[in-house]
């Protein structure tokens, strides 16, 4: 009964926050609502006893992805009112995607899913279970996914990397490699003549 109550609290906040994401005029508020939604979904995962997924959701989405969202939204100050003007034109596409997701939900609810997904064993934590399944049954998809991520990572670096020549840059190894002999010269100065270079 308590679990039911907690479920309804979490899902009500999730839905409200999701509406807030698309309804609020201020884009920073939108991102903050999105974060609230993430957090409540993590709470729902905990209720499903999928605490590993909940923790990962919070670490990855709240700790990294949403921080970058917030960063970009704050820095760029995009005029979202301008973007909003074309909303009606994109309505068919949006409806199509929404319908697609709805159909997928239908599949899940009607019990058609991939064979061999984790079933709760007696005394084994679901972290271990996910690890076992990921590294045995789904090893190939897992490795392919990690490879794609690696390619994306390198791609991002390649696309944004540029080394400007006209700025001062600290070269730590050059600084450390510098010896006293390179920098300081001791000269004996004869009185009345000054130091000669």
């Amino acid at each position, binding site marked *: 009964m*308590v679990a039911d109550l907690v479920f309804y609290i979490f899902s009500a906040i999730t839905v409200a926050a999701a509406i807030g994401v698309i309804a609020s005029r*201020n884009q*920073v*508020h939108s991102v*903050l609502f999105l*974060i609230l939604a993430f*957090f409540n979904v*993590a709470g729902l995962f905990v209720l499903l006893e999928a*605490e*590993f997924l*909940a*923790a*990962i959701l*919070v*670490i990855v989405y*709240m*700790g*990294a992805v949403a*921080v*970058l969202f*917030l*960063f970009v939204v*704050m*820095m760029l100050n995009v005029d979202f009112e301008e973007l909003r003007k074309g909303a009606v034109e994109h309505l068919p596409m949006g409806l199509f995607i929404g319908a697609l997701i709805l159909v997928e939900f239908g599949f899940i609810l009607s019990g058609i899913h991939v064979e061999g997904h984790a079933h709760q064993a007696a005394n084994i*934590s679901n*972290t271990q279970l996910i690890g076992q399944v990921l590294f045995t049954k789904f090893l190939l998809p897992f490795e392919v996914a990690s490879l794609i991520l690696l390619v994306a990572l390198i791609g991002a670096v390649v696309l944004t990397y540029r080394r400007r020549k006209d700025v001062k840059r*600290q070269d*730590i190894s050059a600084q450390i490699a510098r010896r006293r002999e390179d920098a300081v010269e001791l000269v004996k100065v004869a009185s009345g003549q000054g130091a000669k270079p």
Partner: protein
Amino acid sequence: MPEILKELLGTVHGFGEGLFGPMLWILVWTVIKIVILLAPVLFMVTYITLAERKIIGFMQVRYGPNRVGFWGILQPLADAAKLIFKELLLPEKADRMIFFLAPALTLVPALIAWAVIPFSPGLVLADINIGILYILAISSMGVYGIIMAGWASNTRFSFLGGLRSAAQMVSYEVSMGFTLIPVVLLSGSLNLTEVVNAQKGMWFVIPLLPMFVIYFISVVAETNRSPFDLPEAEAELVAGFITEYSAMSSGLFFMGEYANMILVSFMGSILFLGGWLPPIGFLDFIPGIIWLGLKASLLLFVFLWIRATFPRYRYDQLMRLGWKVFLPISLLWIFVTALGVLLFGKA
């Protein structure tokens, strides 16, 4: 002693169930446990401010606070009273809601993370299987308070402070997370109690000394402490994201910072310094909670010591240290540890 305690607990449970009914009593009992856990934490937060001023005073050959009460012992209470009764100011163009939400969002993660800290065998509020992940998740939420404060104040200084802090915390979270992986590899569990139990033969600080050093420096950066206190670098940003905050709303930021500091000290003791285990076997007549407290105090002292010793980092140096020094070393050490576990087995 434990027999009497058990009897006492039984009486309390019986009384509570009679008063509230079994359903509600579980809730009330949890609240009582939370209060018992958080009261000492808040006490420590209050008094570490005095310790900091006294210790830094000692290092700089001055007295530190010594007027309120004997030896300045009531100074934190005087400070708290001052903060509570000062006027709360709100900048005209600030985002009201987020402006006041931000300090709370800094303090709350620093407090709820304590739920999984085991103080001695069995003495833990929530003995969950993913304790380490829980701590990582909660500490990754701490950054929002600071970004929101920086943005909602609607000032240049605050905004720059908030952005700096976001970049800094995200960067150092990566290296901090990576230092925890060897610990998990060696103990074979994400449960903090089992991590401590795995250190019975040898504290993890011995095989993982470089990881411990990186962990400590990373958490100094995570908690925005000197020499990594760039978000509030007073020389360039006035007070960074706290510039516009006054009275208790800035007090909450300070409490969050100190609570985080104490938390990461306890975490460091649990993960690397053997938690409640005594350094030598025959000393185990001293309760584990005292050992844990001593170890955490040692780390806290180092926090203050660093603050009195080192000048502030430059921003590009900070980023270089995080990404180009700590990240490769900790990645390498993960492989070394994994190889060691493969060859010699777990701890």
